[in-house]
Each structure stands twice: as structure tokens, then as C-alpha cells.
């Protein structure tokens, strides 16, 4: 089966180095066939093998009392008590979403949903973290708008039809994401502890079934595409983006869960990146077994597909399933009921090989471990990046801005990073399944679990600007914000999934950023007691040699034992006391104020004390669980003034509400209002509860100061006796709410591209 078509050129087209090719020959004891070369190329791609990141990822904390399944499976799983578990994961679909925004984003959602129900869990929530280039000004603005429009429509189209609520996430903007958007999709599912399924091909002789959509010529080499940087020819790669069919996936979900409940399924894995190749060798590998398949049995969309094409196709909505021998019929009948293809294409062997036949003839025969555990691992060179911009003293920059505080507030509220994302989430069905307690727009989204009395909070957070200024401290601030977001809804942080978006790992400064990020994340996760249960690494996020900021995104999940004390960020009643838990310091470095108003990305990042942060969480949670708190809002992008304004704005069933606040400060007025010191939460409560809050904060050794009261229809802030902000809430809210419809609903956008 050796053929002589494998030239140096063919090897490099497959993204393999000459050394890697030699290693393949050495492992096989012969030259590979073209099909085998294709199999190696996808399995050894950065996307599938994590070859550049593996040595670093080991440093993350992955164990904890609640962790049932850590990294290495299709999704991580944590126990939430009462026999119930949640499976969740985040994955990037950056490259496909740039090439074809709608389908790229849609199939990103499809892929992550399959990862969840592969574990036996029914997906009950989705979120996404999106980053785009600027939507106005600059030559790429038109293109960026079109990408954003396509991505949002793609996510909505897939999630809405599938029937999973898209309940939150984040959207942010910076020039580095121009022509290099980040689309990270998160999903979470619920599963009973004893009904978890793994991607293991156990039981010699058990039949291997192919389930779901037919295999076509789409998406061949998607994983390899996602493991290279882009240039002007990227558009030629459009055929490597798959086309999603959410209806088919919905049928696949229902039929797979039904098949799993039948007891006839031994193991199951979705066919995502690297399709049939990845699922067969990984399922065999995890069980220490082999799998033999016959390709002529694989349902195909068109005749004449080669073994190479069938093995590498990334057609969507397909699963590989190992059934108990003798119970194939039962499984097939369940899929038939849902009008899906389910065919036995092979069986589990004891030889540890991936053996692929086409019409009886062996076209590939590779030891599984060569594709998985023995895939190359690189400890790539690291070189500390010059962080000089972080040393710039930003005080003089701020002073030279000379902007009145009220104007600064209005400009920050209309910064696309801070403005209301309603334009986005209104296109997502965030209520289907009737579990959504806290809708998009608060600090974290909350769903109830009908099966229990509990509720789950979840949030996605990232901050490329911070991580650019200092990757280690940046990710710690991001993790702290994620945990604080959960706490603000009344949930205790439980576990983390991460999506690590970076530029080319072949550049030592990028690898250094990556390594620093891992260490910072490990430190924060250890401090918060939130192990990392899985995630995804996305390298090569660069176009024409320009890389993105290091952009790790964290998905954090938290648990509330009941639904009685779930809190949202908006003020509730006139006459409530507005209180700041935590302290404002001179932390303008890297702030939204500096970036959006002064046009500078510079300065020392806010100092984060993890012990103090943790104390704030404990104090806030105790106050919420004691029923003292009417609203809680994390203080982050844009600082205290933005936080307060957002709490004033209306939300479903509640009109906007004003505040009259007055306090003293030693900081400059702009710093006091817009500093991004971490470890701060703005809460509101009935005045009679304040003494109890003081007592709780005192016990946790946490600062707590009343700033004033809610009421009226204006946002008034007096500092050191001087009225610095006095604005009508409805006017501010209108500006904040209309940013994206102004930018994206213009008629010329519809006709774009």
C-alpha cells in the first residue's frame, strides 16, 4: 500500500516537517500511503495534537473534589451534588469564522454541542466569546461589520434551531482582531452521574457504528487549516469550512440520548476536527484497543470518494459509536426512528491498530498510539516579550486628556466594548427550555436545573488588552473577574474551561506569552479552588504576519444551592443604599478609559491580591445568601462610574432608576471614577440591612462604604463636595443601547459582501 506520490512538496502541503515525516516512517517501518499521510497530518496538526501546548498545559490544576472528568475527553464534567453532573467546554472556531463567518460560527456551535451530548449530557446552555476588529473607521471596518453580522447570525441560526438557549458571553473589539476574529463557543449540559458516556472503544469484537449525516467532500483538512496562519489566499480555503445543519444535529442529539438510555451503547465520540480519523484512533486509543473499519460501508454523499477523502472529511453532524455485540439492531432501530443513518462499519480489535479497509483492501494501518500519545510534543523556545509599554506612567496621559467626567462617562458607555450587546443577544433564543433565570446582560447568566433545586451561573471572560500588557497578571485579572461575575449572581465558583487564543507558537515571544498565561491561570485557579476541566488551544491567529493579542478566554461555572437568592446587576428600588464593597485605587493602566478616550494601550495593570479578591467573594456571597442584597454588579471595564450607570439602566420588567451619590476621595476625579481596580462590587440594599452588611464585611476584613441612595431619574455623583456627574439616566441609557444598531443596521450592511 505504499505509493510513491509522496514528495517533499506533498509532505509540506500536509503541514508536516521533514523531521516529522521521518518520524512517521520510523514508526511505521515503511513509507506511509497517501491516506496514511493524510491521517498523520491531521492527527499531528496543532489543532488535534496540542504539540506546542501540551508541555505547558500540564501545569494547570485539573483535579478537585467535584471533578468527575478532567481534560482529555470530549468535555469536562463536574459533580454538582444529588447524583447530577454538568459537562461543559469551550472551543474556538476562529479560522473558519474568518473565512466564512456564518457557517464558520454555526459549525463552531454545532461542534461544541456534540462534544457535550457525546458525554451523555443534554445541552441546556450555550455562550460565546467574540472578538472583532473595529466596526468604524479604518479600511477594514466594512469587512469587520460583515464578519460580525455573519458570525452573530450563524450562532443564532444554529443554536436557535437546535433548541439550546444562548444565554451569555462577551463581545469586544480591538484593531488586532481585524481580519482575525475570535469566535469561541461554549456549551454546557446536564447528565446523571451514572449515565456519563466516554469516548472509549471497549470490548473486543464489539461493533463500531457510524451514525448521522453522510460523508461528503467538505471540510477536508479543516484541522490543518486551523493550524496555519492566514495570508491573502485565505479565501481560497473556503471549501475547508463545513456547512452546518442544526436540524440534523437536533435529531442526532435526541437519537443519541435515546440510544444511550437503551443500555446498548458502550462508547461514543463525535466526529469533529479530523472526522472519522480522529474518532476511530482516539476511541481505540483511550481503551487500549484497536478499531478496524471498512470504508465502503460508510454512508457517502457522492460516489467515487477516495479513502483519503473519506478519512479526512469534516462533514458535520456525525458520530462514531461502539455498541454491545448482539445489540446493534436495537441501536440501529432507534436511529431509524429519527430517520438517521446508522451503519456498522467495523469492530473493536485487540491489536491497538487503526486498520482501514476499502473494499477489503487495507488502505491504512497505524498503531493508535502513534497518532495520539506518541504524536510529537514540542518544547518550543520561549523569549520574554518586551513589556516596556507597561512601565509608562499613565498619569500625565490622563491629565492631558482634559475631559469632563460626564463626557468621559458618556463616551465610555458608547465604547463598543462597554455598550449594550442587546443587538447581539436579541438574535439568540436565550429562553428555550424554560430554565433561564438571569438573561444576557447581567454579570453572569443563570439557569435553573429542573432536575434539582439548584441553579447554575456561567460567564465567559477575556481581556486581550490586559494580557498584551502583561500576560501573567492579565489572565489573573480575567479569572478574578470571571469568579466575581458568578459571585455577583449569588453562585459559588466551581470549575473552569479555557480557550487559549494565541498567534504563532513558532515565535518564541508568543510561546512565552503562552507559558506566562498558563502560570497565571494556574495561580488564580488554585486560589479560587476552580480546577480547569478542559478547553482548547488555538494557535496561529495571525494574518499577514500580524498576530493577535494573547487572548485567553475563561469559561467559569458556578453553583447556587437554591433559586431564592439569585441577584442581578440592576438597581431594584428607589431609596436603596448603594454600597461599594472593596477599594478604588490608582489603577488606570490598561483601562478602557486610556484605550478608548486617550487612544493608549499602556501602563501598569491593576494590582490583584488573590487573597483579598477571595475575601470579597466570600463576603458578597454571604451577604447575598443572607438575603440582604437587592443588586450586585462587578466593577470592571470602565470603572466605578460605568458600573453604577449600568446598574441604573432599565431591564426586563424594571424601568431605569437614578442615584444620588456623594463621597470623598484622595484620587484624581477621573481616576476615582474610571480606575479599573479589581476586587470591587457595587451592591444595593435596603438601608436597614446596611449594619448587617458592615458586620459581614468586617468579619471578612473587606472594605465597605455607602456611596448614596437610589431614586429619581438622574445619575448624580458628587466627589469631595463637587458635582462631577449629573446626567439623565434615560439619555445615557439610550446612547449605551443604540451603539450596535447604529453601526450595523444601516441598509448598506445588508448588501455587504
Amino acid at each position, binding site marked *: 500500500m505504499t505509493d510513491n506520490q509522496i514528495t517533499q512538496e506533498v509532505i509540506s502541503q500536509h503541514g508536516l516537517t521533514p523531521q516529522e515525516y521521518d518520524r512517521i516512517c520510523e514508526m511505521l517501518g515503511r513509507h506511509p500511503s497517501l491516506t496514511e499521510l493524510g491521517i498523520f497530518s491531521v492527527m499531528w496538526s496543532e489543532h488535534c495534537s496540542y504539540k506546542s501546548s501540551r508541555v505547558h498545559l500540564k501545569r494547570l490544576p485539573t483535579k478537585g473534589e467535584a471533578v468527575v472528568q478532567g481534560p482529555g475527553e470530549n468535555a469536562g464534567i463536574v459533580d454538582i451534588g444529588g447524583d447530577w453532573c454538568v459537562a461543559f467546554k469551550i472551543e474556538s472556531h476562529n479560522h473558519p469564522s474568518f473565512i466564512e463567518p456564518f457557517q464558520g460560527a454555526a459549525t463552531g456551535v454545532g461542534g461544541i454541542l456534540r462534544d457535550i451530548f457525546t458525554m451523555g449530557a443534554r445541552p441546556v446552555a450555550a455562550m460565546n466569546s467574540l472578538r472583532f476588529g473595529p466596526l468604524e473607521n479604518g479600511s477594514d471596518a466594512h469587512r469587520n461589520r460583515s464578519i460580525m453580522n455573519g458570525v452573530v*447570525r450563524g450562532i443564532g441560526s444554529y443554536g*436557535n434551531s437546535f*433548541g439550546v438557549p444562548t444565554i451569555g458571553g462577551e463581545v469586544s473589539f480591538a484593531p488586532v482582531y481585524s481580519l482575525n476574529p475570535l469566535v469561541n463557543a461554549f456549551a454546557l449540559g446536564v447528565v446523571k452521574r451514572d449515565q456519563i458516556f466516554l469516548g472509549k472503544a471497549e470490548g473486543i469484537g464489539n461493533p463500531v457504528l457510524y451514525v448521522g449525516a453522510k460523508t461528503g467532500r467538505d471540510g477536508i483538512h479543516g484541522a490543518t487549516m486551523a493550524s496555519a496562519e492566514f495570508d491573502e489566499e485565505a479565501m481560497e480555503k473556503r471549501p475547508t469550512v463545513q456547512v452546518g445543519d442544526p*436540524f440534523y444535529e*437536533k435529531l442526532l442529539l435526541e437519537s443519541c440520548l435515546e440510544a444511550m438510555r437503551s443500555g446498548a451503547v458502550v462508547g461514543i465520540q463525535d466526529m469533529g476536527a479530523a472526522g472519522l480519523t480522529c474518532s476511530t484512533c482516539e476511541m481505540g486509543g483511550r481503551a487500549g484497543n484497536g478499531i478496524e473499519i471498512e470504508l465502503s460501508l460508510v454512508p457517502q454523499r457522492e460516489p467515487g470518494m477516495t479513502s483519503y477523502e473519506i478519512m479526512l472529511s469534516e462533514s458535520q453532524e456525525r458520530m462514531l459509536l461502539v455498541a454491545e455485540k448482539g445489540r446493534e439492531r436495537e441501536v440501529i432501530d432507534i436511529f431509524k426512528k429519527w*430517520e438517521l443513518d446508522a451503519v456498522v462499519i467495523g469492530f473493536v480489535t485487540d491489536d491497538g491498530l487503526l486498520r482501514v479497509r476499502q473494499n477489503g483492501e487495507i488502505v491504512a494501518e497505524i498503531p493508535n498510539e502513534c497518532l495520539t500519545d506518541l504524536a510529537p510534543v514540542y518544547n518550543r523556545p520561549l523569549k520574554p516579550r518586551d513589556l516596556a509599554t507597561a512601565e509608562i506612567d499613565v498619569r500625565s496621559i490622563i491629565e492631558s486628556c482634559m475631559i469632563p467626567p460626564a463626557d468621559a462617562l458618556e463616551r465610555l458607555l458608547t465604547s463598543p466594548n462597554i455598550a449594550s450587546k442587546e443587538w447581539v443577544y436579541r438574535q439568540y433564543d436565550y429562553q*428555550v427550555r424554560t430554565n*433561564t*433565570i438571569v438573561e444576557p446582560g447581567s454579570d453572569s447568566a443563570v439557569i435553573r436545573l429542573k432536575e434539582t433545586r439548584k441553579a447554575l451561573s456561567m460567564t465567559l471572560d477575556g481581556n486581550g488588552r490586559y494580557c498584551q500588557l502583561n500576560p501573567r497578571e492579565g489572565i489573573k485579572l480575567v479569572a478574578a473577574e470571571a469568579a466575581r461575575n458568578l459571585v455577583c449572581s449569588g453562585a459559588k465558583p466551581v470549575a473552569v474551561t479555557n480557550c487559549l487564543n494565541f498567534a504563532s507558537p513558532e515565535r518564541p515571544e508568543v510561546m512565552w506569552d503562552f507559558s506566562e498565561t498558563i502560570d497565571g491561570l494556574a495561580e488564580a485557579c488554585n486560589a479560587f479552588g476552580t480546577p480547569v476541566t478542559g478547553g482548547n488551544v488555538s494557535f496561529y491567529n495571525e494574518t499577514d504576519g500580524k498576530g493577535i493579542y494573547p487572548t485567553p478566554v475563561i469559561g467559569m461555572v458556578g453553583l447556587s444551592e437554591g433559586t431564592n437568592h439569585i441577584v442581578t446587576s440592576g438597581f431594584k428600588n428607589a431609596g436603596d443604599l448603594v454600597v461599594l464593597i472593596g477599594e478604588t485605587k490608582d489603577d488606570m493602566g490598561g483601562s478602557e478609559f486610556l484605550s478608548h478616550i486617550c487612544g493608549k494601550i499602556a501602563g501598569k495593570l491593576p494590582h490583584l491580591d488573590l487573597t483579598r479578591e477571595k475575601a470579597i467573594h466570600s463576603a458578597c456571597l454571604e451577604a447575598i445568601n443572607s438575603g440582604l442584597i437587592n443588586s450586585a454588579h462587578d466593577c470592571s471595564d470602565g470603572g466605578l462610574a460605568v458600573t453604577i450607570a449600568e446598574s441604573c439602566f432599565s431591564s426586563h420588567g424594571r424601568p431605569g432608576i437614578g442615584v444620588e451619590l456623594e463621597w470623598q476621595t484622595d484620587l484624581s476625579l477621573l481616576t476615582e471614577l474610571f480606575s479599573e481596580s479589581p476586587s470591587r462590587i457595587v451592591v444595593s440594599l435596603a438601608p436597614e440591612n446596611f449594619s448587617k452588611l458592615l458586620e459581614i464585611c468586617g468579619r471578612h476584613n473587606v472594605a465597605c462604604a455607602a456611596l448614596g441612595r437610589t431614586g429619581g431619574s438622574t445619575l448624580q455623583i458628587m466627589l469631595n463636595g463637587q458635582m462631577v456627574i449629573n446626567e439623565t439616566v434615560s439619555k445615557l441609557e439610550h446612547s449605551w443601547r443604540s451603539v450596535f444598531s447604529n453601526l450595523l443596521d444601516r441598509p448598506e450592511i445588508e448588501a455587504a459582501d
Partner: protein
Amino acid sequence: MKFGVVVFPGSNCDHDAYHVISKVIGQPVDFIWHGNTGLGDCDAIILPGGFSYGDYLRCGAIASFSPVMQSVKEFASRGGFVLGICNGFQVLCESGLLPGMLLRNEELKFICDYVNIRVESTNTPFTSLCSQGHVLNVPIAHAEGNYFCDDATLDMLEAEDQIIFRYCNEVGDITRESNPNGSRANIAGICNRERNVLGLMPHPERASEELLGSADGRVVFKSLAATISELVKA
């Protein structure tokens, strides 16, 4: 009394309707598979929201030809109660059980949001416990909810008191601004001439528990249950 919730491939609010009937109003309920030709002993049938058969042709068009819909048509013609929510409303229009069509939303986007709807008639089994002009706060979630019909049909709907819900503002005024999708005459829901079949775009099942933000939609299911229990007694 028994409710039936039809499950088409691609239905995704079937479990939500089932939950409200079984857990919130506490009545017996069964799922009914789209391939079935009988409806068992159900007193009321719910066609739930979702994307039946992927909605790849026109929303609800393929579902209207499914085996179960032939039974639903017979059931309706015998006076059985049929409630179509969102995609279910689209299926009812495609099946000819209700007049008119649902076009793409005016702004050509999917919209998920809370809206207010005014109860225009309490003379249906689905609104009997409402008061006339009562404003309900319920969510919508659709891309094709823009109700359209010709002038003659609209006149008939008005004359026969078949318009059951209209989009309105918080105080119940029917305004242009309160119409989320461009529906003709702000129509959110209509019934047939015999008043036993109702279709509406908003999701009352999503607004049936205070915990989820509104319980205003519960009255639709309670009205239906009350009507059936009256009939059973009689």
C-alpha cells in the same frame, strides 16, 4: 382530562409545553410522535415551537403534511382544542386550520425579547379566564412571525372576533412601536371561526413561572384546563 404535545423532528419547545402542563398547572400530558395517525384520548393538542423538519422549505410547510397533522385536522373539525405556539402557529396556517401566513420579520432578523400583548377576546377556550383588554407580558422568539393576510381575511377576522391577541405597549395601546415584527394590524394570535383552534407567535409557556421573569402566559393553559374540566363535568 389529557393534553397531547406533538413532537415533530425539530420541535424544541415540546418539553417546555410538557413541563408547564404537567408541573405548573398539574394536568396529565403525553407526547405525540409526528408519525402517529391517532391522538389517543387527548382533549387538547399543543403544536409546540421549534423548527419542524428544519423549517427548510417554509416554516411549518413540511409539518403540515405529516401523518399526525391529518389526525389533528380531523380532531379540530370535531371541535377538539388545538393550540399552536410559534412554529405551531405557522403549522396551523400552512395546514389551512387558520387563515393567513407568517412572513419574515420586518427587520429580517431573529428576535428574542419580551413583548406586551392585549387580550382582544375572552370568548375562546384559551382566554376564558382573562379579562378583556388584559395586557400580558410574554416573550417572542422567531424570525418569521410577521402575520399577513389579505384585506378580505382581515375584515373577516375582525368581524368574527377572531383576533385574540395584538401587540401593544405596557398600557395596552396598539401602536406601531409596540409591533415587533411588522404583523398586520399588530396581530399576535388568532383563532378559527369555530374558536377551538388558536395560534399565536408569543410563547405563553415561557412566561408561566415567576422565577423565569413572567407568569402572565399561564392563564392560557389554565383557561384551557378550566374549559376542559367544565366540559368533562357536563
